[in-house]
């Protein structure tokens, strides 16, 4: 298996389990069996089912369900929404992490809590608040109607709801990472005459690239897979305001199970790719950290 070939960093090397503190062989294998049994039941079986159901009517039907115009337009809309929401949250995440990690100011903890807020809000409520804001009876509803702008039951509302739901992902990843790295390297760059942007791109970015990538991957997965929030603000119009997850729902409710699972299998593949990328980035990150530890483990560093 490919994983065995990849080099292991020092931090992930298996810890030698000492006899006195380990369980007996039997207990160990019973625990492993229960854990794997539970995980198979909860994770693996549903995953398998998606693909089996998707192919239950044969490969041609599967292919038909995926390249059907409504499915394609749903896929396009899903990509479009992610293409707006993810870069917006990238800029927000980097800006938030920069001011929180590099400067001292009052209200910092409040700011961190506020950034986390969307994680605590139910997806349904995340969609609802935009209906309250831009819907026919909402704050800006009458004004929008006057100017013939549609936000709710249209694409702008779906973009806004997705952006709200995925707002914390990149910031949450970068803040602790950049706080840990401190400000010394950037200060050195500035003192040596580098400009602000030059410092960011040449010094900060190489240091945070894996964390940034990790946040991007998770943010993108959620943006493409969001269901509840988008469902509330979408008009559910086939070919127009349907994303892939909503298309899965519509097909399922029409009892077109095989087609529904076919579209779902595309999203499942996306999830598996996300997991693979995420795991790779984690390994890279760990390796980068242990490399850095080796370089910097000089006596002065330890004394400091």
């Amino acid at each position, binding site marked *: 298996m490919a994983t065995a070939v990849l080099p292991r960093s020092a931090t992930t090397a298996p810890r030698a389990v000492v006899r006195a503190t380990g369980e007996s062989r039997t207990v160990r294998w019973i625990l492993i069996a229960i*854990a794997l049994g539970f995980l198979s039941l909860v*994770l693996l079986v549903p995953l398998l089912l998606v693909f089996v159901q998707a192919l239950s009517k044969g490969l041609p039907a599967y292919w038909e369900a995926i390249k059907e115009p409504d499915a394609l337009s749903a896929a396009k809309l899903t990509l479009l929404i992610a293409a707006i929401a993810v870069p917006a949250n990238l800029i927000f995440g980097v800006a938030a992490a920069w*001011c929180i990690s590099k400067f001292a100011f009052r209200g910092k903890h409040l700011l961190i809590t506020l950034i986390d807020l969307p994680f605590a809000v139910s997806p349904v409520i995340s969609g609802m608040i935009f209906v309250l804001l831009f819907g026919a009876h909402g704050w800006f509803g009458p004004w929008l109607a006057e100017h013939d702008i549609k936000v709710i039951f249209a694409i702008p509302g779906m973009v806004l709801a997705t952006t709200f739901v995925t707002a914390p992902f990149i910031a949450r990843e970068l803040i602790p990472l950049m706080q840990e790295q401190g400000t010394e390297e950037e200060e050195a760059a500035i003192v040596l005459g580098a400009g602000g942007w030059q410092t960011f791109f040449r010094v900060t970015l190489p240091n945070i690239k894996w964390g940034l990538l990790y946040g991007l991957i998770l943010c993108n997965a959620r943006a493409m897979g969001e269901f509840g929030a988008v469902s509330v603000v979408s008009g559910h119009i086939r070919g127009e305001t349907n994303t892939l997850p909503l298309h899965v729902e519509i097909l399922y409710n029409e009892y077109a199970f095989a087609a529904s699972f076919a579209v779902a299998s595309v999203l499942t593949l996306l999830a598996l790719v996300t997991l693979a990328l995420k795991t790779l980035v984690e390994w890279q990150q760990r390796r980068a950290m242990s490399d850095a530890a080796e370089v910097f483990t000089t006596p002065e560093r330890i004394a400091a």
Partner: protein
Amino acid sequence: MQRKSATVLPGFGLSLGITCTYLSLIVLLPLATVFTRTAQLSGSAFWNTVTDPRVLASYRVTFGASFLAALVNTVFGLLVAWVLVRYRFPGRRIVDAMVDLPFALPTAVAGIALTTLYASNGWIGQYLEPLGLKVSYTWVGITVALIFIGLPFVVRTVQPVLDDLEVEVEEAAASLGAGRWQTFSRVVFPTVAPALLTGFALAFARAIGEYGSVVFISGNMPMKTEIVPLLIITKLEQYDYAGATAVALVMLVASFALLLTINLLQWAARRRMAV
């Protein structure tokens, strides 16, 4: 810790400006609508809406199933974390990566897969039904979906704590004559307990708001298997904005209280580690 007030680094104004503007426009202003909208209701109208029998029943379903699911996840999450950290077996790293599947898989996909799996003619449902256990379209199904959604929260919170646990402490316990079970229950478990509680709270918090994975399997029978998020959507679809907002406010307050509890738990855990 010598973080000074004067720094040579640029970009404070710009980055704080972007952060605050973005946060206000995308997060705070929209969320504020819940509070302003509810403020338009009179006190008694608000109270009648949020204590309506159908609404009360949906709280029971949502909070009951979420609690049960978080509890199951706490037990099995600890076991999974323990096995992943302590034991070596073939495929361990793949299993470790797979634990995050519920984070990555769109909830609608999880919903239709679990519903099909546990339906009376499904792979698993067909064996449970003769035993008198109906899963799909009952509260059991809701719990099953919430177990799926909440599992990574417990595993990922407990795993780093188990990883940091000093083997020496266990060796000391063993050398002082403690049995393996005694060492676990008296030494290991108390160290892991705060993380386990945090994981429980995170899984519970996620579960009470969950919609996509639950709505397919729940059957959506008012008074029986109707969850709060679905009730909010139903009210919205009937243009009962005031009602939807009032119920949403109750849920928001519950979620924020949980968020606060989780932050306090994590803060307490960090303090304990620092000592």
